[in-house]
């Protein structure tokens, strides 16, 4: 299996810092890097810093694990709605499955997502946890 480091590196900083895209014409924000606005089709899309807090829009506890999460489960996956209305998919951490609720306020956390292999590169990225910080 060829290493995937270039593919991970292409999006690493966006995933660490929660950078998204914003259309300068219609204002639509998205999580991924876009060169065409998915709402209005404009090519005037720029990278922006997304808000680091939001609420849980929906959640599930995953018991049937994909191969990459071997030994890790069960874990909580959610769609999180950020303060500006954009939604993204992320794991909810530092929370017991019984305590997750729709509408629960959450904040950005920096966590291990996975690794290529024991000797391969490590992937980090965003997850969300119940709010702890002050600002």
């Amino acid at each position, binding site marked *: 299996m060829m290493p995937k480091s270039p593919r991970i590196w292409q*999006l690493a900083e966006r995933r660490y810092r929660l950078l998204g895209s914003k259309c300068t014409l219609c204002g639509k924000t*998205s*999580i*991924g890097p876009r060169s065409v606005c*998915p709402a209005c089709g404009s090519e005037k899309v720029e990278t922006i810093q997304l808000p680091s807090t939001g609420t849980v*829009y*929906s*959640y*599930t*506890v*995953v*018991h*049937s*694990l*994909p*191969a*990459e*999460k*071997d030994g890790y489960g069960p*874990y909580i*996956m*959610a*769609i999180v709605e950020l303060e500006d209305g954009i*939604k*993204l*998919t*992320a*794991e909810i951490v530092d929370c017991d*499955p019984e305590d997750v609720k*729709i509408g629960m306020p959450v904040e950005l956390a920096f966590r291990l*997502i996975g690794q290529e292999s024991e000797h391969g590169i490590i*992937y980090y*990225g*965003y*997850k969300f946890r119940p709010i702890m910080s002050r600002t």
Partner: protein
Amino acid sequence: MREVAVVGVGMTKFGERWDKQLRDLFVEAANEALKDANMERNEIQALYVGNFSAGSFVGQEHVGPLLADYLSLKYKPAFRVESACASSGMAFNLAYMAVASGMYDIVMVGGVEKMTDISAPEATSVYAKAMDAEWESFFGLTLPAAFALIARRHFVQYGTKPEQLAMVSVKNHRNAAKNPLAQFQFEVTVERVLASPIVADPLHVLDCSPITDGAAVAILCSAELAKKYTDTPVYVLGFGIASDTIALHDRSDITTLGAVVEASRQAYKMAGIEPKNIDVAELHDSFTITEIISYEDLGFCEKGKGGLMIQEGETEIGGRISVNPSGGLKARGNPIGATGVAQVVEIVQQLRGTAGKRQVPGAEIGMTQNIGGTGSTCAIHIFGRQRR
């Protein structure tokens, strides 16, 4: 655009087919379709194959010529179409267009998937490739987890209950018990569904379509030629195809599948019918919640009332609209690439009147609805016993 008819169908038994390889399954279904159409294989002018991920499951790409070769379709054009679980529904559409356009007179279309040569966790990872690899699967979302997110919102927004989801599984298992080619031929109860292990809360094992090997094939020809091959051609009256965002989180309301709404609108318009005119439908119950949402998005009932519709028994065989008489993806099985054409096989048999114990009485107009991923693709076809 001229009219197109289905003149032959064939399908393998769906299930864990340990002794058969991908190519064997397709050839088996194709040979049966040729026999059903009373047709020589050298009459086939082109081959369209739906397949999701032979590369991941069995290390094989370039599936089109592989199967043309194994079917001895010498030098015939062979296409592989991929749209996740809607692969062969989409392949069917391209095959239909090939004949409708007048480019070809006789075309074979099918789907095949061989999923059991890898472990269940690996299959879960492959399935997740139907979603956004960088912004959903990368973070740990699986396909059942995505539909679990949808189910939870449906509970909260409309008061749908886990028991209502389970009723979909109960119905489809009951239907599959009458289908000799179905993967599962045992009935279940609501209690048994809710007691089965959790896959992604609130979806249980018995809420989710299984891992399956299988193939299904149909032969299409122009309506003028149809009577040469069969006394009971089934005509394509209309279709609708739509795409939607790849990621679930990019939809404003995840309890509705915009691609289903749009595709069905196009299909009804082209066929000149309304939802209430559908007698029998093979819908995409990749998960029980998907069937309930499909009732709503196809216009069989109001938004949010899908749970009530299954609860009142309206979609049983012989009900207001008979849904998934074959057993659906849940109980007939879901070899990802084969499902779309498998749905066609069932509707054709229903409209011919040859569906045996599963027969929907007086079925005149049928629908197949095939969904890819979390609704990023939807392919709908409407069939009739009579020409348009």
